[in-house]
Protein backbone atom coordinates (compact mmCIF):
# COMPACT_ATOMS: atom_id res chain seq x y z
CA UNK A 1 0.00 0.00 0.00
CA UNK A 2 1.25 3.40 -0.92
CA UNK A 3 0.33 5.34 2.21
CA UNK A 4 2.84 3.51 4.47
CA UNK A 5 2.38 1.52 7.67
CA UNK A 6 -0.60 2.17 9.93
CA UNK A 7 -0.88 2.22 13.70
CA UNK A 8 -1.93 -1.45 13.78
CA UNK A 9 1.33 -2.60 12.16
CA UNK A 10 4.68 -2.97 13.88
CA UNK A 11 6.46 -1.11 11.08
CA UNK A 12 4.62 2.02 12.25
CA UNK A 13 6.62 2.06 15.50
CA UNK A 14 10.34 2.80 15.66
CA UNK A 15 12.34 1.62 18.68
CA UNK A 16 13.51 5.18 19.28
CA UNK A 17 9.95 6.52 19.41
CA UNK A 18 8.67 3.76 21.67
CA UNK A 19 11.56 4.11 24.09
CA UNK A 20 11.12 7.87 24.36
CA UNK A 21 9.60 8.08 27.85
CA UNK A 22 10.80 8.72 31.34
CA UNK A 23 9.59 7.44 34.64
CA UNK A 24 9.35 10.83 36.34
CA UNK A 25 5.76 11.50 37.36
CA UNK A 26 4.01 14.52 35.83
CA UNK A 27 3.67 17.70 37.88
CA UNK A 28 -0.13 17.52 37.78
CA UNK A 29 -1.93 15.22 40.23
CA UNK A 30 -3.23 12.01 38.69
CA UNK A 31 -6.89 12.81 39.33
CA UNK A 32 -6.58 15.86 37.12
CA UNK A 33 -5.11 14.10 34.09
CA UNK A 34 -7.77 12.67 31.77
CA UNK A 35 -7.12 9.48 29.83
CA UNK A 36 -5.39 10.08 26.50
CA UNK A 37 -7.19 7.68 24.17
CA UNK A 38 -4.94 7.76 21.13
CA UNK A 39 -5.08 5.15 18.35
CA UNK A 40 -2.83 2.16 19.02
CA UNK A 41 -3.68 2.12 22.73
CA UNK A 42 -7.29 0.93 22.73
CA UNK A 43 -9.29 -1.91 21.26
CA UNK A 44 -12.35 -1.69 19.03
CA UNK A 45 -15.59 -1.93 21.00
CA UNK A 46 -17.75 -5.05 21.00
CA UNK A 47 -20.08 -5.24 18.01
CA UNK A 48 -23.78 -5.05 18.90
CA UNK A 49 -24.59 -8.43 17.33
CA UNK A 50 -22.20 -10.22 19.72
CA UNK A 51 -23.58 -8.43 22.77
CA UNK A 52 -27.08 -9.34 21.64
CA UNK A 53 -26.09 -12.96 21.16
CA UNK A 54 -24.87 -13.10 24.76
CA UNK A 55 -27.79 -11.07 26.19
CA UNK A 56 -25.40 -8.35 27.35
CA UNK A 57 -26.64 -4.84 28.11
CA UNK A 58 -26.66 -1.77 25.87
CA UNK A 59 -25.66 -3.18 22.47
CA UNK A 60 -24.87 -0.27 20.14
CA UNK A 61 -22.35 0.99 17.64
CA UNK A 62 -19.89 3.34 19.31
CA UNK A 63 -16.21 4.20 19.41
CA UNK A 64 -13.86 5.15 22.25
CA UNK A 65 -12.80 8.04 20.01
CA UNK A 66 -16.34 9.49 20.24
CA UNK A 67 -17.20 12.12 22.82
CA UNK A 68 -20.51 10.37 23.55
CA UNK A 69 -20.16 6.71 24.46
CA UNK A 70 -23.95 6.24 24.43
CA UNK A 71 -24.13 5.08 28.03
CA UNK A 72 -27.50 4.19 29.56
CA UNK A 73 -29.24 7.20 31.11
CA UNK A 74 -28.90 5.84 34.65
CA UNK A 75 -25.28 4.73 34.14
CA UNK A 76 -24.12 6.11 37.48
CA UNK A 77 -26.74 4.18 39.38
CA UNK A 78 -25.86 1.00 37.45
CA UNK A 79 -22.17 1.28 38.33
CA UNK A 80 -22.87 2.20 41.93
CA UNK A 81 -25.20 -0.77 42.37
CA UNK A 82 -22.65 -2.94 40.59
CA UNK A 83 -19.91 -1.99 43.03
CA UNK A 84 -22.20 -2.59 46.01
CA UNK A 85 -23.28 -5.97 44.73
CA UNK A 86 -19.68 -7.06 44.16
CA UNK A 87 -18.50 -5.80 47.54
CA UNK A 88 -21.15 -8.03 49.11
CA UNK A 89 -20.53 -10.98 46.85
CA UNK A 90 -16.74 -11.07 46.71
CA UNK A 91 -15.02 -10.73 50.05
CA UNK A 92 -11.69 -10.48 48.23
CA UNK A 93 -12.86 -7.37 46.39
CA UNK A 94 -13.75 -5.56 49.61
CA UNK A 95 -10.47 -6.60 51.22
CA UNK A 96 -8.45 -5.47 48.20
CA UNK A 97 -10.27 -2.13 48.20
CA UNK A 98 -9.50 -1.58 51.88
CA UNK A 99 -6.06 -2.94 52.66
CA UNK A 100 -3.66 -1.35 50.17
CA UNK A 101 -1.25 0.94 52.06
CA UNK A 102 0.20 2.30 48.80
CA UNK A 103 3.70 1.11 49.69
CA UNK A 104 4.63 1.03 46.01
CA UNK A 105 6.20 -2.45 45.96
CA UNK A 106 4.16 -3.22 42.84
CA UNK A 107 4.78 0.10 41.13
CA UNK A 108 7.63 -0.90 38.83
CA UNK A 109 6.60 -4.54 38.32
CA UNK A 110 4.07 -4.10 35.52
CA UNK A 111 5.24 -4.69 31.96
CA UNK A 112 3.04 -1.85 30.68
CA UNK A 113 4.57 0.59 33.16
CA UNK A 114 8.11 -0.60 32.41
CA UNK A 115 7.55 -0.31 28.67
CA UNK A 116 5.57 2.93 28.70
CA UNK A 117 6.23 4.94 31.86
CA UNK A 118 2.57 5.91 32.31
CA UNK A 119 2.08 6.21 36.08
CA UNK A 120 -1.50 4.91 35.78
CA UNK A 121 -0.01 1.60 34.73
CA UNK A 122 1.60 1.25 38.13
CA UNK A 123 -0.64 -1.48 39.54
CA UNK A 124 -1.20 0.53 42.71
CA UNK A 125 -2.46 3.50 40.74
CA UNK A 126 -4.47 1.43 38.28
CA UNK A 127 -6.30 -0.04 41.27
CA UNK A 128 -6.62 3.44 42.73
CA UNK A 129 -8.73 4.42 39.72
CA UNK A 130 -11.46 2.20 41.13
CA UNK A 131 -10.50 2.46 44.78
CA UNK A 132 -10.94 6.25 44.73
CA UNK A 133 -14.60 5.82 43.70
CA UNK A 134 -15.06 3.13 46.34
CA UNK A 135 -13.66 5.46 49.00
CA UNK A 136 -15.79 8.37 47.89
CA UNK A 137 -19.10 6.51 47.81
CA UNK A 138 -18.72 3.54 50.15
CA UNK A 139 -16.51 4.57 53.11
CA UNK A 140 -17.32 6.97 55.92
CA UNK A 141 -14.02 8.81 55.57
CA UNK A 142 -14.52 9.30 51.85
CA UNK A 143 -18.15 10.34 52.16
CA UNK A 144 -17.13 13.00 54.70
CA UNK A 145 -13.76 14.16 53.44
CA UNK A 146 -13.93 13.36 49.72
CA UNK A 147 -10.67 14.12 47.98
CA UNK A 148 -8.81 14.60 51.28
CA UNK A 149 -9.50 10.94 52.01
CA UNK A 150 -8.46 9.85 48.52
CA UNK A 151 -11.99 9.84 47.13
CA UNK A 152 -13.28 11.23 43.87
CA UNK A 153 -16.74 11.31 42.36
CA UNK A 154 -17.75 8.95 39.58
CA UNK A 155 -17.90 10.80 36.26
CA UNK A 156 -17.98 9.88 32.57
CA UNK A 157 -14.28 10.79 32.53
CA UNK A 158 -13.65 8.16 35.20
CA UNK A 159 -15.48 5.55 33.11
CA UNK A 160 -13.31 6.41 30.09
CA UNK A 161 -10.21 6.18 32.25
CA UNK A 162 -11.29 2.77 33.57
CA UNK A 163 -11.79 1.57 30.01
CA UNK A 164 -8.36 2.79 29.03
CA UNK A 165 -6.45 1.26 31.91
CA UNK A 166 -8.41 -1.89 32.76
CA UNK A 167 -7.76 -2.86 29.15
CA UNK A 168 -4.10 -2.00 29.65
CA UNK A 169 -3.77 -4.75 32.25
CA UNK A 170 -3.30 -8.33 31.13
CA UNK A 171 -4.40 -9.77 34.48
CA UNK A 172 -0.98 -11.44 34.59
CA UNK A 173 -0.55 -10.98 38.36
CA UNK A 174 3.19 -10.33 38.33
CA UNK A 175 2.56 -7.34 40.61
CA UNK A 176 0.72 -9.57 43.08
CA UNK A 177 3.87 -11.64 43.61
CA UNK A 178 5.52 -8.57 45.09
CA UNK A 179 2.56 -7.24 47.12
CA UNK A 180 3.23 -7.69 50.85
CA UNK A 181 -0.54 -7.96 51.38
CA UNK A 182 -1.07 -10.39 48.53
CA UNK A 183 -3.54 -8.13 46.74
CA UNK A 184 -4.56 -9.82 43.53
CA UNK A 185 -4.56 -6.88 41.15
CA UNK A 186 -5.94 -9.05 38.36
CA UNK A 187 -9.11 -9.41 40.40
CA UNK A 188 -9.40 -5.65 40.65
CA UNK A 189 -9.10 -5.39 36.87
CA UNK A 190 -11.70 -8.15 36.54
CA UNK A 191 -14.08 -6.18 38.76
CA UNK A 192 -13.38 -3.02 36.76
CA UNK A 193 -14.17 -4.82 33.51
CA UNK A 194 -17.35 -6.32 34.98
CA UNK A 195 -18.52 -2.85 35.98
CA UNK A 196 -17.79 -1.48 32.49
CA UNK A 197 -19.67 -4.43 31.07
CA UNK A 198 -22.80 -3.39 32.97
CA UNK A 199 -22.80 -0.29 30.76
CA UNK A 200 -22.24 -2.28 27.56
CA UNK A 201 -18.55 -1.37 27.37
CA UNK A 202 -16.76 -4.40 25.97
CA UNK A 203 -13.97 -4.88 23.44
CA UNK A 204 -14.66 -6.88 20.33
CA UNK A 205 -11.49 -8.96 20.54
CA UNK A 206 -12.96 -10.51 23.68
CA UNK A 207 -16.68 -10.44 23.11
CA UNK A 208 -16.70 -11.91 19.60
CA UNK A 209 -14.72 -15.00 20.71
CA UNK A 210 -17.01 -15.26 23.74
CA UNK A 211 -20.10 -15.17 21.49
CA UNK A 212 -18.52 -17.67 19.07
CA UNK A 213 -17.68 -19.93 21.98
CA UNK A 214 -21.20 -19.81 23.33
CA UNK A 215 -22.57 -20.68 19.89
CA UNK A 216 -20.09 -23.25 18.53
CA UNK A 217 -18.02 -24.32 21.53
CA UNK A 218 -14.87 -22.46 20.55
CA UNK A 219 -13.60 -18.91 20.16
CA UNK A 220 -12.97 -19.18 16.43
CA UNK A 221 -16.43 -20.42 15.57
CA UNK A 222 -15.19 -23.72 14.12
CA UNK A 223 -18.11 -26.09 13.56
CA UNK A 224 -17.93 -29.87 14.04
CA UNK A 225 -17.23 -30.73 10.39
CA UNK A 226 -14.61 -27.98 10.27
CA UNK A 227 -12.78 -29.40 13.27
CA UNK A 228 -12.86 -32.86 11.74
CA UNK A 229 -11.47 -31.48 8.49
CA UNK A 230 -8.73 -29.61 10.36
CA UNK A 231 -7.56 -32.58 12.42
CA UNK A 232 -7.62 -34.82 9.33
CA UNK A 233 -5.45 -32.26 7.57
CA UNK A 234 -2.99 -32.48 10.46
CA UNK A 235 -3.03 -36.27 10.17
CA UNK A 236 -2.09 -35.97 6.47
CA UNK A 237 0.86 -33.71 7.26
CA UNK A 238 1.95 -36.01 10.07
CA UNK A 239 1.95 -38.93 7.67
CA UNK A 240 4.04 -36.93 5.22
CA UNK A 241 6.60 -36.11 7.93
CA UNK A 242 6.73 -39.44 9.75
CA UNK A 243 5.29 -42.10 7.46
CA UNK A 244 2.86 -43.05 10.20
CA UNK A 245 -0.91 -42.76 9.74
CA UNK A 246 -2.50 -41.70 13.00
CA UNK A 247 -6.09 -41.96 14.18
CA UNK A 248 -8.10 -38.92 15.23
CA UNK A 249 -10.75 -40.13 17.69
CA UNK A 250 -13.65 -37.67 17.84
CA UNK A 251 -16.67 -37.59 20.14
CA UNK A 252 -15.83 -41.16 21.16
CA UNK A 253 -18.15 -42.38 23.89
CA UNK A 254 -16.49 -44.44 26.59
CA UNK A 255 -12.99 -43.11 25.89
CA UNK A 256 -10.89 -42.94 29.04
CA UNK A 257 -9.76 -39.34 28.57
CA UNK A 258 -11.33 -36.22 27.06
CA UNK A 259 -8.72 -33.90 25.55
CA UNK A 260 -9.44 -30.15 25.43
CA UNK A 261 -7.11 -27.50 24.02
CA UNK A 262 -7.39 -23.83 22.98
CA UNK A 263 -8.87 -23.45 19.49
CA UNK A 264 -5.92 -21.28 18.45
CA UNK A 265 -4.16 -24.64 18.06
CA UNK A 266 -6.58 -25.43 15.21
CA UNK A 267 -5.87 -22.33 13.17
CA UNK A 268 -2.85 -20.24 14.03
CA UNK A 269 0.78 -20.69 13.19
CA UNK A 270 2.74 -21.97 15.18
CA UNK A 271 0.00 -23.45 17.40
CA UNK A 272 -1.05 -25.90 14.69
CA UNK A 273 2.30 -27.70 15.02
CA UNK A 274 1.76 -28.00 18.76
CA UNK A 275 -1.56 -29.63 17.96
CA UNK A 276 0.14 -32.08 15.62
CA UNK A 277 2.50 -32.79 18.52
CA UNK A 278 -0.42 -33.85 20.75
CA UNK A 279 -1.79 -36.10 18.00
CA UNK A 280 1.57 -37.83 17.53
CA UNK A 281 2.14 -38.33 21.25
CA UNK A 282 -1.33 -39.77 21.88
CA UNK A 283 -1.01 -42.08 18.89
CA UNK A 284 2.37 -43.35 20.00
CA UNK A 285 1.05 -44.05 23.51
CA UNK A 286 -2.01 -45.83 22.15
CA UNK A 287 -4.03 -43.58 24.44
CA UNK A 288 -7.75 -44.25 24.72
CA UNK A 289 -8.83 -40.63 24.39
CA UNK A 290 -11.12 -38.39 22.37
CA UNK A 291 -11.40 -34.93 20.90
CA UNK A 292 -14.76 -33.22 21.22
CA UNK A 293 -16.51 -31.02 18.68
CA UNK A 294 -18.62 -29.55 21.49
CA UNK A 295 -15.97 -28.95 24.19
CA UNK A 296 -13.71 -27.67 21.42
CA UNK A 297 -12.14 -24.82 23.37
CA UNK A 298 -9.97 -24.88 26.46
CA UNK A 299 -9.53 -21.13 26.55
CA UNK A 300 -12.19 -18.99 28.12
CA UNK A 301 -12.58 -15.35 27.16
CA UNK A 302 -15.25 -15.20 29.83
CA UNK A 303 -12.32 -14.76 32.21
CA UNK A 304 -11.78 -11.36 30.61
CA UNK A 305 -15.49 -10.48 30.71
CA UNK A 306 -17.24 -11.50 33.93
CA UNK A 307 -17.52 -14.37 36.38
CA UNK A 308 -20.93 -15.17 34.97
CA UNK A 309 -19.43 -15.50 31.49
CA UNK A 310 -16.60 -17.74 32.71
CA UNK A 311 -19.18 -20.10 34.11
CA UNK A 312 -21.38 -20.10 31.01
CA UNK A 313 -18.53 -20.83 28.63
CA UNK A 314 -16.82 -23.39 30.81
CA UNK A 315 -19.88 -25.51 31.55
CA UNK A 316 -19.39 -27.51 28.34
CA UNK A 317 -16.24 -29.24 29.58
CA UNK A 318 -17.82 -31.20 32.42
CA UNK A 319 -21.04 -31.62 30.44
CA UNK A 320 -19.17 -33.24 27.56
CA UNK A 321 -17.04 -35.35 29.90
CA UNK A 322 -20.28 -36.65 31.36
CA UNK A 323 -21.96 -37.22 27.98
CA UNK A 324 -18.98 -39.14 26.64
CA UNK A 325 -18.60 -40.96 29.94
CA UNK A 326 -14.85 -40.40 30.17
CA UNK A 327 -12.88 -40.90 33.39
CA UNK A 328 -10.98 -37.62 33.44
CA UNK A 329 -9.96 -34.62 31.36
CA UNK A 330 -6.59 -33.70 29.91
CA UNK A 331 -5.91 -30.14 28.83
CA UNK A 332 -3.55 -28.75 26.22
CA UNK A 333 -0.96 -26.02 26.09
CA UNK A 334 -3.03 -23.02 27.14
CA UNK A 335 -2.36 -20.32 29.68
CA UNK A 336 -5.45 -18.47 30.90
CA UNK A 337 -7.69 -21.53 30.63
CA UNK A 338 -5.77 -22.94 33.55
CA UNK A 339 -6.71 -20.11 35.84
CA UNK A 340 -10.32 -21.06 35.15
CA UNK A 341 -9.85 -24.82 35.27
CA UNK A 342 -7.55 -24.88 38.24
CA UNK A 343 -9.09 -22.19 40.39
CA UNK A 344 -12.76 -21.84 39.44
CA UNK A 345 -14.06 -24.85 37.56
CA UNK A 346 -14.76 -27.24 40.41
CA UNK A 347 -16.87 -24.73 42.33
CA UNK A 348 -18.39 -22.98 39.31
CA UNK A 349 -19.34 -26.03 37.26
CA UNK A 350 -18.75 -28.93 39.65
CA UNK A 351 -18.67 -31.04 41.61
CA UNK A 352 -17.63 -33.42 38.83
CA UNK A 353 -18.56 -36.55 40.71
CA UNK A 354 -19.07 -38.38 37.43
CA UNK A 355 -15.29 -38.22 36.90
CA UNK A 356 -12.37 -39.91 38.65
CA UNK A 357 -9.07 -38.63 39.98
CA UNK A 358 -6.77 -38.56 36.91
CA UNK A 359 -4.50 -41.60 36.66
CA UNK A 360 -2.04 -41.95 33.79
CA UNK A 361 -2.88 -45.20 32.05
CA UNK A 362 0.74 -45.44 30.91
CA UNK A 363 2.64 -44.89 34.18
CA UNK A 364 -0.04 -45.45 36.81
CA UNK A 365 0.70 -42.08 38.37
CA UNK A 366 -2.28 -40.75 40.29
CA UNK A 367 -2.54 -36.96 39.99
CA UNK A 368 -3.83 -36.45 43.50
CA UNK A 369 -3.59 -32.64 43.34
CA UNK A 370 -6.34 -32.68 40.68
CA UNK A 371 -8.75 -34.71 42.78
CA UNK A 372 -11.28 -31.90 42.83
CA UNK A 373 -11.09 -30.65 39.21
CA UNK A 374 -10.35 -34.08 37.61
CA UNK A 375 -8.32 -32.31 34.96
CA UNK A 376 -4.57 -32.10 34.47
CA UNK A 377 -2.26 -30.12 32.20
CA UNK A 378 -0.52 -31.98 29.40
CA UNK A 379 2.85 -30.78 30.65
CA UNK A 380 2.29 -32.72 33.90
CA UNK A 381 1.22 -35.73 31.87
CA UNK A 382 4.22 -35.64 29.50
CA UNK A 383 6.80 -34.88 32.20
CA UNK A 384 5.51 -37.93 34.08
CA UNK A 385 5.86 -40.09 30.94
CA UNK A 386 9.47 -39.00 30.47
CA UNK A 387 10.27 -39.45 34.17
CA UNK A 388 9.10 -43.06 33.90
CA UNK A 389 11.07 -43.69 30.71
CA UNK A 390 7.97 -44.29 28.62
CA UNK A 391 9.03 -42.19 25.63
CA UNK A 392 11.84 -43.00 23.22
CA UNK A 393 13.36 -39.62 22.47
CA UNK A 394 16.04 -38.44 20.11
CA UNK A 395 16.74 -34.85 21.15
CA UNK A 396 19.37 -34.46 18.43
CA UNK A 397 16.51 -33.96 15.96
CA UNK A 398 16.04 -30.56 17.57
CA UNK A 399 19.75 -29.74 17.47
CA UNK A 400 19.36 -26.82 15.09
CA UNK A 401 17.25 -25.15 17.77
CA UNK A 402 18.66 -23.32 20.78
CA UNK A 403 15.69 -22.97 23.06
CA UNK A 404 14.54 -20.77 25.90
CA UNK A 405 11.23 -20.98 27.77
CA UNK A 406 8.61 -18.36 28.49
CA UNK A 407 6.60 -19.16 31.62
CA UNK A 408 3.02 -18.27 30.80
CA UNK A 409 1.51 -16.05 33.49
CA UNK A 410 -1.34 -18.34 34.41
CA UNK A 411 0.41 -21.71 34.35
CA UNK A 412 3.22 -20.20 36.42
CA UNK A 413 1.37 -17.96 38.85
CA UNK A 414 -2.06 -19.59 38.98
CA UNK A 415 -0.87 -23.22 38.94
CA UNK A 416 2.80 -23.33 39.85
CA UNK A 417 3.81 -25.43 36.84
CA UNK A 418 7.44 -24.32 36.77
CA UNK A 419 9.56 -27.46 36.63
CA UNK A 420 7.58 -29.71 34.30
CA UNK A 421 8.05 -27.70 31.08
CA UNK A 422 11.77 -27.27 31.77
CA UNK A 423 12.12 -30.97 32.49
CA UNK A 424 10.36 -31.84 29.24
CA UNK A 425 12.37 -29.31 27.21
CA UNK A 426 15.70 -30.54 28.58
CA UNK A 427 14.74 -34.07 27.53
CA UNK A 428 13.67 -33.23 24.01
CA UNK A 429 16.39 -30.77 23.02
CA UNK A 430 20.08 -30.54 23.79
CA UNK A 431 20.39 -26.76 23.99
CA UNK A 432 18.20 -25.10 26.60
CA UNK A 433 18.91 -21.75 28.25
CA UNK A 434 16.75 -19.96 30.81
CA UNK A 435 16.23 -16.23 30.68
CA UNK A 436 17.40 -14.09 33.66
CA UNK A 437 15.95 -14.97 37.05
CA UNK A 438 13.76 -11.90 37.50
CA UNK A 439 11.96 -12.60 34.23
CA UNK A 440 10.99 -16.26 34.64
CA UNK A 441 9.03 -18.67 36.85
CA UNK A 442 6.66 -16.86 39.23
CA UNK A 443 8.29 -13.56 38.24
CA UNK A 444 7.74 -14.16 34.55
CA UNK A 445 6.92 -11.21 32.31
CA UNK A 446 3.68 -11.27 30.36
CA UNK A 447 3.61 -11.43 26.56
CA UNK A 448 1.83 -8.06 26.66
CA UNK A 449 -1.24 -9.32 24.81
CA UNK A 450 -2.98 -11.63 27.30
CA UNK A 451 -6.42 -11.11 28.84
CA UNK A 452 -7.90 -10.35 25.43
CA UNK A 453 -5.51 -7.57 24.43
CA UNK A 454 -3.74 -9.40 21.61
CA UNK A 455 -5.29 -7.59 18.69
CA UNK A 456 -3.53 -5.42 16.14
CA UNK A 457 -5.30 -2.09 16.74
CA UNK A 458 -3.76 -2.20 20.22
CA UNK A 459 -0.27 -2.55 18.75
CA UNK A 460 1.46 0.28 20.57
CA UNK A 461 0.49 -1.15 23.94
CA UNK A 462 1.36 -4.71 22.89
CA UNK A 463 4.86 -3.64 21.90
CA UNK A 464 5.29 -1.58 25.06
CA UNK A 465 3.93 -4.38 27.25
CA UNK A 466 6.09 -6.89 25.40
CA UNK A 467 9.29 -4.92 25.94
CA UNK A 468 10.45 -6.60 29.20
CA UNK A 469 9.85 -10.09 27.80
CA UNK A 470 11.34 -9.20 24.41
CA UNK A 471 14.36 -7.69 26.10
CA UNK A 472 15.01 -10.87 28.09
CA UNK A 473 14.63 -12.99 24.95
CA UNK A 474 17.07 -10.77 23.08
CA UNK A 475 19.48 -11.14 26.02
CA UNK A 476 19.61 -14.95 25.75
CA UNK A 477 19.81 -14.65 21.99
CA UNK A 478 22.91 -12.46 22.24
CA UNK A 479 24.47 -14.45 25.07
CA UNK A 480 23.65 -18.03 24.08
CA UNK A 481 22.56 -17.84 20.46
CA UNK A 482 18.97 -18.75 21.37
CA UNK A 483 16.77 -18.92 18.27
CA UNK A 484 13.56 -20.44 19.67
CA UNK A 485 11.20 -19.35 22.40
CA UNK A 486 9.02 -22.20 23.64
CA UNK A 487 5.69 -21.34 25.25
CA UNK A 488 2.80 -23.47 26.47
CA UNK A 489 -0.01 -21.01 25.81
CA UNK A 490 -1.90 -20.25 22.61
CA UNK A 491 -2.09 -16.51 23.26
CA UNK A 492 1.67 -16.55 23.87
CA UNK A 493 2.35 -18.39 20.66
CA UNK A 494 0.38 -15.74 18.76
CA UNK A 495 1.39 -12.57 20.59
CA UNK A 496 5.03 -13.43 21.33
CA UNK A 497 5.59 -14.02 17.63
CA UNK A 498 4.89 -10.31 17.18
CA UNK A 499 6.85 -9.28 20.29
CA UNK A 500 9.89 -11.27 19.13
CA UNK A 501 9.63 -9.98 15.59
CA UNK A 502 9.91 -6.49 17.03
CA UNK A 503 12.25 -6.80 20.03
CA UNK A 504 14.18 -10.02 19.30
CA UNK A 505 13.85 -10.60 15.54
CA UNK A 506 16.14 -13.64 15.31
CA UNK A 507 13.99 -15.67 17.68
CA UNK A 508 10.90 -17.62 16.58
CA UNK A 509 8.15 -18.99 18.80
CA UNK A 510 6.91 -22.56 19.15
CA UNK A 511 4.89 -24.81 21.42
CA UNK A 512 6.52 -27.49 23.55
CA UNK A 513 4.74 -30.50 22.06
CA UNK A 514 6.05 -29.62 18.63
CA UNK A 515 9.52 -30.15 20.06
CA UNK A 516 8.36 -33.32 21.84
CA UNK A 517 6.93 -34.76 18.63
CA UNK A 518 10.01 -33.92 16.59
CA UNK A 519 12.15 -35.80 19.11
CA UNK A 520 9.73 -38.69 19.62
CA UNK A 521 10.85 -41.90 17.96
CA UNK A 522 7.67 -43.56 16.68
CA UNK A 523 7.07 -47.20 16.00
CA UNK A 524 7.10 -47.77 12.23
CA UNK A 525 8.30 -44.30 11.37
CA UNK A 526 10.31 -43.61 8.25
CA UNK A 527 13.63 -41.80 8.43
CA UNK A 528 12.57 -38.38 9.68
CA UNK A 529 13.87 -36.02 7.04
CA UNK A 530 11.12 -33.45 7.55
CA UNK A 531 9.94 -31.82 10.75
CA UNK A 532 6.27 -31.09 11.41
CA UNK A 533 6.51 -27.90 9.38
CA UNK A 534 7.63 -30.16 6.51
CA UNK A 535 11.02 -28.45 6.46
CA UNK A 536 14.23 -30.53 6.21
CA UNK A 537 15.30 -31.42 9.78
CA UNK A 538 18.96 -30.69 9.15
CA UNK A 539 18.33 -27.23 7.71
CA UNK A 540 20.11 -24.64 9.82
CA UNK A 541 18.26 -21.62 11.12
CA UNK A 542 18.80 -18.37 9.28
Amino acid at each position, binding site marked *: *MAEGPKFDQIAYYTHDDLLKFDYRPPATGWMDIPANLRPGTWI*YPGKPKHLEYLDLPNPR*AWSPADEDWKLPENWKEIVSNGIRERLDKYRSFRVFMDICVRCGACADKCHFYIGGGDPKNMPVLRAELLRSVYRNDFTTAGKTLGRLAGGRPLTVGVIKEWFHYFFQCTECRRCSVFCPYGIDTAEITMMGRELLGLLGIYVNWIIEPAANCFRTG*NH*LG*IQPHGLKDTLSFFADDIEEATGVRIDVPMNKKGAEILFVTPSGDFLADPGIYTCMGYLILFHELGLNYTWSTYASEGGNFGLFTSHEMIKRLNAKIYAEAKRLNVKWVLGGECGHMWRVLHQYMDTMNGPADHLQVPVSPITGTRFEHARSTKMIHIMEFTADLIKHGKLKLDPSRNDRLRVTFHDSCNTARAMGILEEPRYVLKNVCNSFFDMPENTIREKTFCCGGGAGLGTDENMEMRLRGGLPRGNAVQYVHERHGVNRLAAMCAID*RATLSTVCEYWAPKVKVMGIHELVANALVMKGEKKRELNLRLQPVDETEE
Partner: protein
Amino acid sequence: MAEFKAGDMVLDVDEDGFIQEPDKWNEKVAAALASGEGVDSLTENHWKVVNYLRDYYLKFGVAPMIRKLCKDTGFKLNEIYELFPSGPAKGACKVAGLPKPTGCV
Protein backbone atom coordinates in the same frame (compact mmCIF):
# COMPACT_ATOMS: atom_id res chain seq x y z
CA MET B 1 -20.35 1.64 11.48
CA ALA B 2 -18.27 2.69 8.48
CA GLU B 3 -19.52 2.19 4.95
CA PHE B 4 -17.79 0.96 1.85
CA LYS B 5 -18.89 1.72 -1.70
CA ALA B 6 -18.49 -0.79 -4.51
CA GLY B 7 -20.11 0.53 -7.67
CA ASP B 8 -23.71 1.24 -6.72
CA MET B 9 -23.56 -1.01 -3.64
CA VAL B 10 -23.03 0.30 -0.14
CA LEU B 11 -21.72 -2.19 2.42
CA ASP B 12 -21.15 -1.99 6.15
CA VAL B 13 -17.52 -2.61 7.07
CA ASP B 14 -15.78 -2.88 10.44
CA GLU B 15 -12.90 -0.68 11.60
CA ASP B 16 -10.42 -2.77 9.61
CA GLY B 17 -12.53 -2.69 6.45
CA PHE B 18 -13.91 -6.24 6.63
CA ILE B 19 -17.43 -6.43 5.19
CA GLN B 20 -20.08 -7.29 7.76
CA GLU B 21 -22.59 -9.04 5.53
CA PRO B 22 -20.74 -11.84 3.72
CA ASP B 23 -23.90 -12.65 1.74
CA LYS B 24 -23.62 -9.37 -0.15
CA TRP B 25 -20.19 -10.27 -1.51
CA ASN B 26 -19.75 -10.57 -5.26
CA GLU B 27 -16.93 -10.24 -7.74
CA LYS B 28 -17.36 -6.50 -8.09
CA VAL B 29 -17.17 -6.11 -4.31
CA ALA B 30 -13.99 -8.23 -4.34
CA ALA B 31 -12.40 -6.00 -6.95
CA ALA B 32 -13.31 -2.87 -5.01
CA LEU B 33 -11.98 -4.33 -1.74
CA ALA B 34 -8.80 -5.42 -3.52
CA SER B 35 -8.03 -1.92 -4.73
CA GLY B 36 -7.99 -0.83 -1.08
CA GLU B 37 -5.42 -3.51 -0.34
CA GLY B 38 -2.92 -2.48 -2.96
CA VAL B 39 -4.18 -4.89 -5.63
CA ASP B 40 -4.99 -2.92 -8.77
CA SER B 41 -6.41 -5.77 -10.81
CA LEU B 42 -7.36 -9.29 -9.83
CA THR B 43 -5.48 -11.81 -11.97
CA GLU B 44 -6.20 -15.51 -12.39
CA ASN B 45 -3.89 -16.27 -9.45
CA HIS B 46 -5.70 -13.78 -7.23
CA TRP B 47 -8.99 -15.41 -8.11
CA LYS B 48 -7.59 -18.85 -7.35
CA VAL B 49 -6.90 -17.70 -3.78
CA VAL B 50 -10.12 -15.72 -3.42
CA ASN B 51 -12.32 -18.50 -4.77
CA TYR B 52 -10.61 -21.05 -2.54
CA LEU B 53 -11.21 -18.89 0.54
CA ARG B 54 -14.77 -18.23 -0.51
CA ASP B 55 -15.54 -21.93 -1.01
CA TYR B 56 -13.94 -22.88 2.29
CA TYR B 57 -15.90 -20.19 4.07
CA LEU B 58 -19.20 -21.26 2.54
CA LYS B 59 -18.51 -24.84 3.55
CA PHE B 60 -17.14 -24.29 7.06
CA GLY B 61 -18.26 -20.78 8.14
CA VAL B 62 -14.73 -19.70 9.07
CA ALA B 63 -11.42 -18.91 7.38
CA PRO B 64 -9.02 -21.81 6.79
CA MET B 65 -5.63 -21.99 8.44
CA ILE B 66 -2.99 -20.34 6.29
CA ARG B 67 -1.10 -23.61 5.94
CA LYS B 68 -4.14 -25.25 4.38
CA LEU B 69 -4.67 -22.30 2.06
CA CYS B 70 -1.08 -22.63 0.85
CA LYS B 71 -1.21 -26.39 0.45
CA ASP B 72 -4.54 -26.50 -1.36
CA THR B 73 -3.83 -23.60 -3.73
CA GLY B 74 -0.19 -24.50 -4.29
CA PHE B 75 1.02 -21.00 -3.42
CA LYS B 76 3.80 -20.51 -0.89
CA LEU B 77 3.21 -17.93 1.85
CA ASN B 78 5.56 -15.42 0.23
CA GLU B 79 3.63 -15.83 -3.02
CA ILE B 80 0.39 -15.05 -1.19
CA TYR B 81 2.05 -11.88 0.08
CA GLU B 82 3.13 -11.04 -3.45
CA LEU B 83 -0.48 -11.35 -4.57
CA PHE B 84 -1.94 -9.64 -1.50
CA PRO B 85 0.60 -7.27 0.08
CA SER B 86 -1.42 -6.99 3.32
CA GLY B 87 -1.22 -10.76 3.78
CA PRO B 88 -3.53 -13.76 3.79
CA ALA B 89 -5.80 -12.58 6.64
CA LYS B 90 -6.01 -8.81 6.27
CA GLY B 91 -5.59 -8.98 2.51
CA ALA B 92 -6.86 -12.15 0.86
CA CYS B 93 -9.60 -12.97 3.40
CA LYS B 94 -10.85 -9.41 3.36
CA VAL B 95 -11.09 -9.41 -0.44
CA ALA B 96 -12.93 -12.74 -0.30
CA GLY B 97 -15.48 -11.20 2.07
CA LEU B 98 -14.61 -13.37 5.09
CA PRO B 99 -14.84 -12.14 8.67
CA LYS B 100 -11.64 -11.49 10.61
CA PRO B 101 -10.54 -14.42 12.83
CA THR B 102 -10.49 -13.66 16.59
CA GLY B 103 -9.33 -15.50 19.69
CA CYS B 104 -5.89 -16.85 20.54
CA VAL B 105 -4.61 -16.14 17.05
